[in-house]
């Protein structure tokens, strides 16, 4: 316990108040630890603003969400009308609603950029594995939050999107149908589904999300940030124990972030005020038709931020299963033949592969599509252990690694685009190739990330004064 600190009776009222609080709550201590004496590398580039921006979007979503809940009715008969009521009769309701709907897409934009930053600079590498795991948890919670929130306007896309995704769960062997029933609370998506999704969207998932965000930041501030050079700045300190390449977060990065926030708000407002539908990508046109359980839309597509993973789902057809079975067998043979390990492990791997192949033959491709979609997200959790590169940052990796990362990004955009499109033969083939590339990038990473000539990592960060 800290000692009680007396202050001179001549001190100013402000100093006295702060002293009174500091004796009872670690206010100054927290401010120092997390702001004024939290040393961040001075070589951050533009990629480092998306963490702060995702926090900003989280606040926007919570605040606008609070006001929306004041007028929204989670009732299948009233939901669609209550959203139109917000758009028309609630003062400034249209602004609150557009901020929330645009915020949902903005959240995914900043989070995808934030995650890609981590990928480029190896921010998930030791000792930052937990920061990354909490972050992946946030991404997963965000997806759940967005999916359930999308049902609430109760338009055709809300309804049929939920119908399609919840039906996927019924593809799980044995427990599937009951699980889907449990999620829906009815045999089709209906009032019961709307009520439980509302409950999850406004309280359950946001609580998890906030908890994970706090854990993410605590873990980050314990270890300190990585940087574009992938150098540990704490390895080089001055006489006072302050990293030579570190600068106090406040005021340097707080002014940086305020600048970034104003630029972000400019773009955000341009969308909210001039293109809230974003050409049908942020607010889908079909969603202005009230949900109708008796009329299936011709083309059901999830909102853009889910489409890469939706493509992974659709790519797994019964034909594709043979390719995947081939991949499993080749993988098992290579593991047994090439990796040095006790023969017991080899036997386990060979046996495991045979069991998996048997299951792949026995269970419908639809289920494996669900596995691919889930796996596409879950695989991100394993990145800290998949990446074996001797350097953290892309800057010091071989050029062909950069090309590979570039190809990964292009592939992600392609499968994202294909997820918005109707099925066709050519699109299906490209989706399947894209799916193999997506998983190949991660699953083969333990090997390819070690290959090539790496550049010498300097001991101090690269920084040019601006």
């Amino acid at each position, binding site marked *: 316990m800290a000692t009680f600190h007396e202050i001179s009776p001549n001190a100013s009222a402000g100093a006295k108040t702060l002293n009174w609080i500091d004796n009872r709550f670690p206010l100054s201590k927290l401010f120092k630890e997390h702001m004024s004496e939290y040393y961040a590398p001075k070589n951050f580039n533009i990629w480092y603003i998306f963490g702060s921006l995702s926090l900003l979007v989280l606040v926007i979503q919570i605040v606008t969400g609070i006001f929306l809940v004041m007028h929204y009715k989670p009732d299948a008969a009233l939901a669609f009308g209550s959203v*139109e009521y917000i758009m028309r009769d609630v003062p400034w309701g*249209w602004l609150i609603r*557009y901020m929330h709907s645009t915020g949902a897409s903005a959240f995914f934009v900043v989070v995808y950029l934030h995650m890609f930053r981590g990928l480029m600079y190896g921010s998930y590498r030791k000792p930052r594995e937990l920061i990354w795991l909490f972050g992946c948890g946030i991404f997963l919670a965000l997806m759940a939050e967005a999916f359930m929130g999308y049902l609430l306007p109760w338009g055709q896309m809300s309804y049929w999107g939920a119908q399609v995704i919840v039906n996927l769960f019924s593809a799980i062997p044995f427990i599937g149908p009951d699980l889907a029933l449990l999620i829906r609370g009815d045999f*089709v998506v*209906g009032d019961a589904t709307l009520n439980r999704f509302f409950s999850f969207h406004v309280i359950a998932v946001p609580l998890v999300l906030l908890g994970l965000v706090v854990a993410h930041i605590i873990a980050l501030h314990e270890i300190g940030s990585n940087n574009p050079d992938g150098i540990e700045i704490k390895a080089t300190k001055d006489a006072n124990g302050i990293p030579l390449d570190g600068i106090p977060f406040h005021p340097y990065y707080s*002014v*940086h972030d305020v600048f970034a926030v104003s630029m972000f708000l400019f773009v955000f407002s341009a969308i909210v*005020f001039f293109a809230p539908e974003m050409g049908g990508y942020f607010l889908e046109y079909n969603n202005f038709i009230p949900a109708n359980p008796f009329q299936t839309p011709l083309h059901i597509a999830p909102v853009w931020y889910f489409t890469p993973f939706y493509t992974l789902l659709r790519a797994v057809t019964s034909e594709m299963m043979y390719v995947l079975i081939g991949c499993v067998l080749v993988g098992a043979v290579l593991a047994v033949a090439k990796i040095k390990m006790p023969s017991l492990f080899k036997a386990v791997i060979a046996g495991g592969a045979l069991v998996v192949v048997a299951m792949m033959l026995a269970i419908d491709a*639809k289920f494996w599509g669900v596995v691919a979609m889930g796996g596409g997200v879950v695989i991100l959790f394993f990145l800290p252990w998949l990446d074996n590169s001797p350097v953290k940052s892309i800057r010091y990796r071989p050029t062909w690694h950069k090309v590979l990362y570039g190809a990964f990004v292009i592939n992600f955009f392609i499968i994202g685009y294909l997820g918005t499109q109707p099925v066709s033969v050519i699109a299906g083939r490209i989706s399947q190739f894209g799916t193999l590339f997506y998983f190949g990038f991660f699953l083969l990473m333990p090997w390819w990330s070690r290959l090539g000539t790496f550049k010498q990592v300097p001991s101090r960060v690269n920084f040019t*004064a601006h």
Partner: protein
Amino acid sequence: MKIMGFTQKIILGVAMTLGLAGAVQAAAVGAAWDKAPNRINDMGALQSGAKVFVNYCLNCHSAAFMRYTRLTDIGLTTDQIKDNLLVTNSKIGDTMKAAIDPTQAKAWFGVNPPDLTVIARSRAGAGGTGADYLYSYMRGFYRDDTKPTGWNNHVFPNVAMPHVLWELQSSMSPGEYDQTIGDLVNYLQWMAEPAQTTRKNIGIWVLIFLAGLIFLTWQLNKAYWKDIK
């Protein structure tokens, strides 16, 4: 919500699962859409569109989220709305309800005429804006004696709706009819989001403010960072 029987739900569930598995992608087969005129800031056009809407469309279609009072936004006075536009038994604060009884409508047309409040937003697509669709659709009717209504449509083949405006069309020159439909479509576009003009007007000021804020925060950032070598 209509209460469904257990068996019906099961059948529906199975039908939906099958339907989704083989998601049929027959894109709507209709004629290409013409570009609708944009008169969204022309109060006269919006008022004349509102008149056509109330006199013709509102007989069968509702605009269940649109209040009559909101018509003051397009320059009509409360008295003008009360005297000329209010359908029987409606009050000025009410939303626009169709004159027709929904069960009768279903019996006559086979479908319930859809609500038109946000129709202009819902009909946008690859072919153009929702206004383009409606403008082409309302001008796309032709005689077809094989249909129960005696009408068919180039943009929406086999549509259940008869050509409600045919008398109007035959009393007008093609140019005048296009003008009338243009006004109606602009009204529908406006009604789909009455705040849209306000939104854009405010947006300009918000962006000007934020541009100023960007300049200030940029300078602030520069002033602090000049110390960092």
